[in-house]
C-alpha cells in the first residue's frame, strides 16, 4: 500500500487536485443555477414554474454518466470541442444543480409565509423581499443539506474517469491497470477520497445538531 503511494504520488496528487478543482467549480455553478431554478419554482409565474420543474426532473432522472458522456462525445461533434475535464464538470454541474434546486426550494418554503407578506406590506417588491428577507433565512436551513450535496459532488466527480478527466479515479484506474496491483491501488485512492469527504461529513453532522 505504501508502495503505491511512494511510486505514484505525483499522478495521485494531480488526480487529487483535479477532483477538488472540478468539485469546487461544479459546486459554484450548480449553486447559482440551482438557486435560480428554485426561485422559478416559488415565483407566481406559471411558465417559469413549468420550466423549473422540467429542468429539475430531467437532470434528476438521468444518470450522471450519461450526461457526462453526452458532453464528451456528442456535443463536440455538433457544437464545440470540450476536453474530458470540462465535459465532466459541465455534466456534474447540471446534474447537481437539479438536486440543489430541490434543496433550496424546500428551504425557501420552510421560511414562514408571514415573512413575505410582512415584507410586501412594508413596501418591498417581491424580488427585494426574496433577496433580502427570504433567501438569507432559507440558506440557514439548507446549509447542512448543501454540505451533503458537496460530499455527493466529490464522490460523483469520479465519473470523470470515464471521459479521461484526469481526476483521482482516472489516475488510480490507470495505475491499477498497468501495475495489476488493483487491491492496494484502490485502497489508496479510497483513502484519498476519504480525506476530502469524511471530515466534511462529520462537520455537517455537527452543524446539523447545532442548528437543530
Amino acid at each position, binding site marked *: 500500500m505504501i508502495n503505491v503511494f511512494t511510486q505514484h504520488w505525483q499522478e495521485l496528487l494531480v488526480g487529487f487536485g483535479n477532483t477538488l478543482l472540478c468539485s469546487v467549480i461544479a459546486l459554484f455553478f450548480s449553486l447559482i443555477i440551482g438557486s435560480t431554478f428554485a426561485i422559478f419554482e416559488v415565483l407566481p409565474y406559471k411558465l417559469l414554474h413549468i420550466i423549473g420543474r422540467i429542468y429539475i426532473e430531467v437532470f434528476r432522472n438521468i444518470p450522471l454518466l450519461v450526461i457526462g458522456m453526452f458532453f464528451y462525445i456528442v456535443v463536440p461533434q455538433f457544437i464545440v470541442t470540450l476536453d474530458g475535464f470540462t465535459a465532466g464538470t459541465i455534466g456534474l454541474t447540471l446534474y447537481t444543480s437539479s438536486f440543489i434546486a430541490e434543496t433550496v426550494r424546500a428551504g425557501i418554503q420552510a421560511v414562514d409565509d408571514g415573512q413575505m407578506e410582512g415584507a410586501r406590506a412594508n413596501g418591498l417588491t417581491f424580488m427585494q423581499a426574496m433577496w433580502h428577507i427570504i433567501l438569507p433565512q432559507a440558506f440557514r436551513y439548507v446549509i447542512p443539506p448543501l454540505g451533503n450535496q458537496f460530499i455527493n459532488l*466529490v464522490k460523483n466527480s469520479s465519473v470523470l474517469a470515464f471521459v479521461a478527466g484526469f481526476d483521482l479515479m482516472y489516475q488510480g484506474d490507470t495505475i491499477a491497470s498497468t501495475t495489476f496491483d488493483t487491491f492496494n491501488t484502490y485502497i489508496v485512492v479510497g483513502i484519498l477520497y476519504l480525506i476530502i469527504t469524511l471530515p466534511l461529513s462529520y462537520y455537517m453532522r455537527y452543524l446539523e445538531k447545532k442548528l437543530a
Partner: protein
Amino acid sequence: MSSLAEAYSWINLRYLLQGLLVTIEVSVISIILSFILGSILGIIRYIRFPFVSAIVGFIIDLIRNLPLLLLLFFTYFGLPQVGIKMDPLTAAIAAMTVFESAMIAEIVRSGIQAVDLGQMEGARSVGMTYWQGLRVIVLPQAMKKMIPPLVSQFISLIKDTSLATIIVLPELLYRAQIIYGQNTRYMVPMFIALAVMYFVVCYALSLVASGLERRTN
C-alpha cells in the same frame, strides 16, 4: 430521417430493452437487499449498543463517503486479489448493496431520531417494553418520514447501475455504447433512447412514491 429509423430498428431496440431488463434486475435486487440490510444497520446505530454501534457507525461513515465507482472497481478488480471472486452481475449487486445499505442506514437512523423522544416515553409509561415501543409506536411514524428520502435513494440506485458498464455488465448504457460504437451515426439517437428509458423508469418510481405518500397521509 432514414438513419433515425435505422437507429431505432427493432433489432437495436430489442438489444437495448434486454439491457434495460438487466438494469431493472440489478436495481430491484439491490433495492431489496440494501433496504433490509440498511434498516438493520440503521437501527443498530440508533439503539447505541455499546461498542458494536460505534464500529458499525464508523464503517457506515467510511462507505458513505466513498464513490460508488470506487467500490465497484474494488469489488470487481481488487477483491479477487484476496481470493473473493465474482462475475460482473454479482459484483455489481454486491457493490451497490454495500453502498446503498450505508446510505439507507443513515436515512433510517435520522428518521427514527426525528420522531419525538416523548413518543417513546409515552409508550413506556403505558407499560410497553422498549422493543414494543420501538416497533409499535416509533418505527411506523419514522417510516412515514423516511419515505421521501428513501425513494430518492432508490432512484439514485437505478441511475447508478449505469456505472456497472465499466465492469462490462451488459446493462442499458453498455448496450447503447456497443450499438453506437459500431455505427457512430447512431450516437445521437442512442443518447436520446438512453435519456428516455432512464427517465421513464426513474420518474415512474417517483410518481408511484408520491402516490403512496398521499395515501398514507
